[in-house]
């Protein structure tokens, strides 16, 4: 009898949950049992990278898609944190589970630094500046090879784990946790304010919102998660080099977020996984890879700017961005509601 009650309770609970939460759980479960179904080292590695770039894409999204500040040089946060995590690991012997969060903190610091020009410069000027920041950093690294390891970078970092399955679960856990937090932010009143800045910063100011403060906050959050992704990758590869500041990584973040659904946060997960699959499929025609990636970029930005998720959202009439405070108006579910 007791068992029956427990099962009914769970079913009731499931029914109460929103569509989004259900999808989240489903995804988590599927991705979690994956290693049991396939011991393919190769596949797991691809998915690990997909997870890292999902976090990276989402970090760009909260700044660009949600707050409206388009950074074209997000590799800056990624790279700085990678180097800092690596340095902490190499010189202070801190383990990855410490260096990665600290790498995230360095991402926050970089975020504050980059926030300053964004306040003073007009959008176009800021876009150009953000594009150039990573190049400056790469240049500095090349200029002082004795301290920074120059072109070869730093290597010999501690692995996440010698077991690929453990590494996979770590990346999965990190990704799910990060996305969860970012989505909570998106639907919170902070997300509401971020979106108001995106839609019309002047009106936001006129509404009593200190846009400067919230822009800084957005940069900090974005920098933190980009930093975590960077730190994780550094330990995954057990090394990092100035190539991490390559504009192409910045574009990856933008592409992943845009392909999945700009401004939705969860879109970055889909976008990242899709691009990973695409990349692998193209491995055989290696020289066309960048070409096709760029082509996808072009098509997405030109014809599908909202991303794939928004197509679904439109069709099933779900609002992905809505403030959770409105929940009370239509019951417990926070599906967004039918417009």
């Amino acid at each position, binding site marked *: 009898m007791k068992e029956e009650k427990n099962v009914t309770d769970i079913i009731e609970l499931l029914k109460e949950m929103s569509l989004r939460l259900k999808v989240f759980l489903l995804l988590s479960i599927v991705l979690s049992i994956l290693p049991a179904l396939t011991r393919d080292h190769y596949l797991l590695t691809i998915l690990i990278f997909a997870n890292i770039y999902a976090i990276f894409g989402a970090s760009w999204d909260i700044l660009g898609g949600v707050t409206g500040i388009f950074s074209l040089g997000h590799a800056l946060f990624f790279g700085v944190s990678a180097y800092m995590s690596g340095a902490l690991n190499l010189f202070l012997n801190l383990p990855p589970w410490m260096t990665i969060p600290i790498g995230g903190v360095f991402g926050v610091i970089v975020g504050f630094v980059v926030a300053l020009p964004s306040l003073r410069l007009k959008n176009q000027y800021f876009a150009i500046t953000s594009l150039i920041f990573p190049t400056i950093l790469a240049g500095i690294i090349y200029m002082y090879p004795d301290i920074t390891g120059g072109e070869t970078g730093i290597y010999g970092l501690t692995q996440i784990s010698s077991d690929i399955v453990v590494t996979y679960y770590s990346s999965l856990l990190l990704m799910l946790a990060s996305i969860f937090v970012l989505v909570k932010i998106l639907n919170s009143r902070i997300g509401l304010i971020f979106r108001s800045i995106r839609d019309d910063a002047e009106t936001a100011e006129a509404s009593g919102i200190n846009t*400067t403060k919230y822009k800084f906050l957005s940069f900090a959050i974005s920098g933190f998660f980009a930093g975590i992704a960077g730190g994780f990758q550094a330990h995954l590869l057990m090394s990092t080099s100035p190539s991490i500041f390559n504009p192409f990584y910045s574009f990856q973040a933008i592409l992943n977020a845009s392909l999945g659904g700009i401004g939705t946060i969860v879109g970055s997960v889909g976008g990242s996984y899709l691009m990973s699959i695409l990349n692998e499929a193209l491995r055989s025609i290696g020289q066309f890879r960048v070409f096709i990636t760029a082509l996808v970029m072009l098509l997405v930005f030109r014809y599908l700017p909202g991303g794939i998720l928004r197509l679904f959202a439109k069709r099933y009439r779900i609002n992905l961005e809505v403030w959770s405070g409105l929940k009370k108006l239509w019951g417990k579910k926070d599906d967004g509601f039918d417009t």
Partner: protein
Amino acid sequence: MGLILEIKGLSKRFGGIQAVDDFSLDIREGEILGLIGPNGAGKTTLFNLITGFIKPDSGAVTFKKKNITKLKPHKIASMGVSRTFQQVKPFNRMLAIENVAVPLFSKRARKRKNGDDVLSKAIEVLRRVEIIPPDSNMFKLASQLSHGYSKRLDIARALALEPEVLLLDEPFGGLGFKEMTIMNEVVKKLHEDGLTIVIIEHKMRALMKLVERLAVMHFGAKIAEGNPKEIARNEKVCEAYLGKDGGRLFA
């Protein structure tokens, strides 16, 4: 009834144009004042100067005896001076009710709130502009609203701050007859609630029915001030609008 907003000698120059020229005006608490003048007279620029969106070259603005001239827009809004814009500028990709919720997270709203329900406050504000829930418009994206609703949503947004002074920039702009009637009622009721209101408007007939006092701007300077009757007979005002040979503006 004291002076709630004092504008003293405000001036602003853009390149070769003196947009606002040594403008002074005393606004009494609780009054409803109209600001008129031909196109390009500097009215909106004046609003921008008062609310901190533009810094004046010289002059000062005091609100309740506090100097607000150099403050940032969000600070001024949080102190109790709220405004709307000439072009409706809603948060386009957010729902109408979300639009109204945003100001409720400003410093001012948070200071006054006693842990009160943001949602009910938002609905209450919408009520005041005649967007009565359950109104399906509440859940529409701001970009999908009709013009009349958008205009009132703008005011709702400004109201959500619980301001003491409300600056309305062409609230009747682009409205049809029915909408104008609703808007008229809304503004009247707001005035009755005790708000000090300054309105920039071109639709004279609608404005005259609402305001007790008028100030007239031309080429950035104040050329006349007084009640509607006096202004209608004022020669300088007629000249400004109709040129040297202009007769009476309105009977």
